[in-house]
């Protein structure tokens, strides 16, 4: 493999937008500074809100109280759970199809070449533009949202998995051949483990996209769900509820990401060790 291919692989890793901030060298002072800016920002907000007396800018305390009332109540089950459920279904479909097809496409090089222009075009299409088509064909039920999410999350997962499978070092494939492994065995025992870091990157991006799509699809075509809730709150001027919804989304997003990173560290511990070494 030439330097170019390795450079491209490095670029693809750099394209992973969901990486955590590089945060070496933490100090106590640093942490205090971090926390104080957050506290300061919240305090500032509180002050400004109380001064302004505007409906549009509720105070932090008001938002907090509303948040507590809304989300520690049946509303959570009515609004948040459907969203999470739809997202999970769509994401799992996208993940399963994307990884399987991606690895196959990446491994059989001719397939990659064949499908490349079509893939490049389809992945450049904003998945939200598909929503009107989805509504047209499937109405505004759960199925539409699940399929839209699956469609959107599918592409980064597919392409990253294909990249991962495509960029397995030649020597590893040769080693498998030398020791007499069949194609299936090679795919299972060499290609997939080799491709796992890239597959994981694709899955992480897919998760972010699934998250976005559930909110949008519920804003455009739904009668419940978090996206619907936030937009409705804005339309009916239930402003603290609206902010509360946004905060909930932030928390959910944070939790989902952390969960993913945790799972990843369990499966890909060897990869972190290896890349740390080669620094």
């Amino acid at each position, binding site marked *: 493999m030439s330097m170019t291919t390795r450079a491209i692989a490095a670029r693809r890793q750099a394209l992973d937008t969901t990486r955590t901030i590089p945060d070496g060298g933490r100090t106590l002072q640093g942490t205090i500074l971090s926390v104080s800016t957050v506290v300061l920002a919240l305090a500032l907000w509180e002050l400004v809100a109380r001064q302004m007396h505007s409906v549009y800018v509720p105070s932090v305390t008001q938002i907090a109280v509303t948040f507590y009332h809304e989300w520690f109540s049946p509303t959570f089950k009515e609004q948040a759970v459907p969203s999470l459920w739809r997202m999970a279904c769509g994401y799992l479909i996208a993940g399963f199809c994307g990884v399987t097809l991606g690895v196959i496409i990446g491994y059989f090089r001719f397939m990659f070449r064949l499908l490349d222009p079509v893939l490049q075009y389809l992945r450049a299409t904003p998945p939200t533009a598909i929503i009107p088509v989805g509504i047209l064909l499937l109405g505004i039920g759960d199925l539409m949202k699940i399929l839209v999410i699956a469609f959107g999350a599918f592409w980064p997962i597919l392409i990253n998995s294909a990249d991962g499978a495509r960029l397995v*070092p*030649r*020597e*590893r494939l*040769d*080693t498998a*051949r*030398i*020791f*007499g*492994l069949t194609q299936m*065995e090679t795919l299972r*025992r*060499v290609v997939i*483990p*080799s491709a*796992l870091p890239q597959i994981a990157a694709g899955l992480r991006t897919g998760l972010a996209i699934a998250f976005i799509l559930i909110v949008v699809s519920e804003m455009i075509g739904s009668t419940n769900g978090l996206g619907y809730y936030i937009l409705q709150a804005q339309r009916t001027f239930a402003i603290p509820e609206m902010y509360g919804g946004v905060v909930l989304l932030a928390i959910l997003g944070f939790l989902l990401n952390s969960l993913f990173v945790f799972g990843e560290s369990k499966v890909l511990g*060897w*990869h972190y*060790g*290896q890349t740390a*070494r*080669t620094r």
Partner: protein
Amino acid sequence: MIVEREIILEVAALQKRYANGTLAIQEITLDVRKSEFASIVGPSGAGKTTLLKTICALLAPTAGQVMLHGKPIVEPPPEMILVFQDYARSLFPWLTVMGNVIFPLKKRSDISKSEKENLCREAIKAVGLERFSNYYPWQLSGGMQQRVALARAIAFRPEILLLDEPFASVDALTRADLEDLTLRLRADFDITMLLVTHDIDEAVYLSDRVFVLSPPPSVLVAEIPIPLAQPRDQIRTRSDQKFLELRNRIHKMIGKPKEQVLAEDEEHALATAALELNKTPS
């Protein structure tokens, strides 16, 4: 006294042309005998790696044949295992040392699990890495990683080991250790070795026979028997007069086309012969 051992590997009129049309190997014919240590030397770009890969059927020859025990090879045979130069890229980073070594054995259904583990442990011990069985390859130094690659090949108990410039990517001291390790492995496990290298001293030090390749499109320029005393020793062997003569002779051949080598070497052979006549027999 060289015992005539049976020929187990035959390369007959091998030719290899790359997909882009370049002729890498024009015609190579050589043979390898049981338990011998043979080396192939040549200038960079002579297609040495290509030659090894074609011999073990990773690449298909454009013409000619490779025969193992008289039977032509089409698929990489289990009796012949190749050890790569770039060990970092051929070892699997998600497996420990033990995991890597046992990897090829996993699909063998004719050996029990405990037997497999024994084979692996023996191989790991033979390369001196018993303490590191549970380490990951990237936690080890370059020399150690190459040992893991060797152990993985050895545990499979092949008849022939093909080595593609295996020590090119390590420092000089480690290289000396690994060279001696290879000799030990060959003795302990009775494996025939075919090594490809650009390092002439290494080739002469290790081998019973050295094949010299011309610049591409390669042909076999010379076949040099190495009658140095066994067991080889880094200091004693390398300071032997005969060693120096052999390596100088081969050195002069590198980079030159076949006709020139034959012409020049005739002179050299005659000159050496004349010198021999004037010396008292030792």
